[in-house]
């Protein structure tokens, strides 16, 4: 039998395994940040720039929100690179931000259109990760999309800082280790809105739900139902409507004859604008009386942008919001000013949450001293901060959900200008909106993933 020189001798095997062993042990000897830099991970920025991916709906029912989110992202990038007035970088406490990019690398960004469809959003996110080498993906405006992109980011080992997504599932049953959400959720809306509804409309009411037929709508319907039924309300019926339906008259027609005296619209964006306008103007519901009570409409989640779209119809409507530019605190003022000077209009809550998420990511990277995602994730988990416009806020480690005060808002009767359409009825303290993370189930998954570097 010929001697095969390529075969492994015992000596060579021993030598190699010793070397491999030493190599594997090395990282544990060195300090944390030094070895993390050498880790192979997805899209480790090698040049002097770092790329962030902003994946927002530029078409479909949430296009207005998407456009405002994109403006906020651009502003955040500007501020991170030390241009402009710095915005909330000056108010964030505690902060490691330096205003020279992230870890000294200039921040660049790429954008994409989610079309409010899971497939398109994932394709767009994949492009950002594979072609543009984005180290972090942010954006949203539809919970279905946010959840789909979040799980993709977990698989690829890229962090996802969710933009506007309000479904309980995003940080509930579909939560992921690589996904973080600053925005509040439907459960918190229910907890905050319930007592106000009881106060305003009494404890003996019959509610009719119209619900956008996807994850966000379902969880919001459930949360509001639980909260209102807890007060003694009765739910007459809950009807699902397709996302982006455009015309809601067929769903609104049965409402007045159903015996319900409150209509709860679990709609958002363009859908909410259409359904609310139709309910108020076409069906004239707010001037009706049912069983001696004034008919009321509630929109559990609404925003300045939607109020602009709905116009007159929004007057007197109760709902909740994550943030409002008229909030009386230093950070909100600074941000509203900075945004207003840049774009000529005050920021929406969608813009706010996206701006904050970008800054929080950058701050976590600076704190960790590395872009290596597991370290950045650990820096964000349990991070307690202030000065982002919502008062003291906690990024809970168990489900990556932010806990902060929730606003109950109402459409203003006498708006002074086109940006002053909502008034803050009540600021519900954080403790009242906090819940046990185990009620929604789900699991975060591992810190270390093979990701796209493999």
């Amino acid at each position, binding site marked *: 039998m010929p001697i095969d020189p390529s075969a492994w001798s015992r000596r060579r095997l021993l030598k190699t395994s010793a070397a491999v062993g030493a190599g594997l042990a090395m990282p544990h000897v060195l300090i944390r940040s030094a070895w993390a830099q050498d880790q192979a991970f997805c899209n480790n920025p090698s040049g002097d720039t770092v790329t962030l991916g902003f994946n927002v709906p530029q078409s479909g029912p949430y296009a207005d929100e998407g456009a405002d989110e994109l403006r906020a992202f651009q502003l955040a990038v500007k501020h991170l690179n030390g241009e402009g007035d710095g915005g909330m970088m000056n108010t964030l406490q505690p902060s490691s931000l330096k205003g020279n990019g992230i870890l000294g690398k200039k921040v660049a960004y790429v954008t994409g259109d989610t079309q409010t469809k899971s*497939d398109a959003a994932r394709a767009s996110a*994949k492009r950002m990760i594979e072609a543009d080498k984005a180290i972090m993906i942010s954006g949203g405006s539809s919970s279905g999309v946010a959840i789909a992109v979040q799980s993709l980011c977990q698989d690829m080992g890229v962090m996802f800082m969710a933009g506007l997504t309000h479904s309980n*599932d995003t940080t509930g049953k579909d939560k992921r280790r690589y996904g973080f959400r600053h925005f509040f959720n439907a459960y918190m809306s229910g907890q905050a809105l319930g007592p106000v509804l009881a106060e305003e409309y009494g404890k003996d009411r019959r509610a009719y739900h119209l619900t956008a037929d996807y994850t966000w709508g379902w969880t919001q319907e459930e949360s509001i139902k639980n909260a209102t039924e807890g007060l003694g309300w009765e739910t007459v019926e809950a009807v699902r409507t397709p996302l982006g339906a455009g015309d809601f008259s067929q769903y609104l027609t049965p409402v007045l004859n159903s015996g319900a005296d409150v209509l709860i619209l679990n709609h958002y964006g363009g859908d909410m604008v259409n359904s609310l306008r139709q309910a108020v103007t076409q069906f004239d519901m707010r001037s009706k009386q049912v069983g001696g009570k004034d008919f009321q409409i509630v929109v559990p989640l609404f925003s300045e942008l939607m109020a602009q779209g709905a116009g007159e119809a929004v007057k007197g409507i109760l709902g909740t919001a994550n943030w409002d530019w008229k909030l009386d605190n230093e950070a909100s003022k600074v941000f509203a000013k900075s945004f207003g000077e840049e774009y000529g209009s005050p920021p929406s809550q969608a813009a706010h949450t996206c701006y904050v998420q970008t800054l929080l990511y950058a701050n976590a990277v600076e704190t960790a001293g590395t872009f290596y995602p597991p370290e950045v994730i650990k820096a964000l988990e349990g991070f307690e901060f202030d000065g982002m416009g919502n008062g003291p806020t906690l990024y809970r480690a168990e489900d990556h959900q932010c806990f902060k005060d929730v606003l109950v808002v109402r459409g203003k009767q006498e708006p002074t200008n086109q940006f002053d359409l909502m008034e803050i009825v009540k600021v519900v303290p954080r403790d009242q909106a906090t819940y046990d993370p185990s009620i929604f189930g789900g699991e975060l998954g591992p810190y270390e993933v093979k990701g796209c570097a493999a």
Partner: protein
Amino acid sequence: MSETVLTSDKAMGKSPAEKDRKNAGMAGFLSSSNSDYLMAALFALAIFTMPLWLAPIGAGYPDILQKFAIFGIFALGFNILFGFSGYLSFGHAAFLGAGSYAAVWMFKLLSMNAVLAVAFSIVIAGIFALAIGFVSLRRSGIYFSILTLAFAQMSYNLAYSVLTPITNGETGLQISRTDPRVLDNMFREPGAALPVPDFFGIELQGWPGFYFCATLLVLAFFLTMRIKNSTFGMMLFAIKSNQNRMAYTGFSTRPYLLAAFVISGMYAGLAGGLLAVTDPLAGADRMQWTASGEVVLMTILGGVGTLLGPVIGAAVMKYLEQIFSSFNEGVLHRAFDFLTPELQDLMVGITSPFVGEGWHLTLGLMFMIVVIFLPGGIMEGLRRIASATRGRRAGSGDAN
């Protein structure tokens, strides 16, 4: 019966019609079957080197190339029905969606092996197509289109809100760690992370995923070519030119049409299965009428009835959707930075409505230009260019 026709294509090689088509085409000097192989080989070469030659225009990354290949298959299959027999189906997305759901269920229940999933999705889509085709093909023309559209919308609504235990509604069907996966779990313990579809151990994400799809595209292309050159293909073309005459000569056209419909549905199922292989998630969006319309656009854009056209059309559409939609003003400014600042702003102002969220506008314009000036699609444009250059070289403008 279609199978017997399919295998007898050798006899067709030297028919006059065949020769005419070949002369009008690219390689008249080769015998038909050799030129078939040559064309398939060239096609395979072009597809497998896509990562190299598409990189300069920003499309050299796995996800978009996977999409090129997958939607290429989808359009190829659609073309068998629409391009060959002239029957315009407006509901092909139903088969794409059915294929995706079938593949994901295979991942959930049996194994992450892509071969099983893809085979199952072809079978399910085939059964679907048989049922829908059986009913829809009782009518022709616009009535056929409307029937298929109705069936597809029905499937979409079923998937979206009625059959949610099977489809998981709007959120989409996803795999999870706790799925049974009977075959896989017999051999190994489930890991901590979500499993990834594989081809006997090769994980089909990124580049391996692309080569898997590309191989299937080449096979699909070759099969389509054989179908086109077969007697069966001939029958389909005869139906397209005059279905009545075909019937008067004693042929029953329905079986041929049904076979074409099922084959093209199976192509769509394959494409849907591959979508699930490269990204194990199936949503109802894939069944929506916009997805059905997309494949019609792809085929017309590329060239109805041609072999290569639908593949090119699919690639162009996906390129517009992915790359054009990602251009923002910053990118435009960089593209025009060789100009003076004023000119730069002007150029950015002119071009920005056509990129970013305006990519639909570009697509629409392109579609209009193609339909008005090049009714044969991009393929006709290429042919005209080819014949123009050939004519200049030989001093005589022959060709079509």
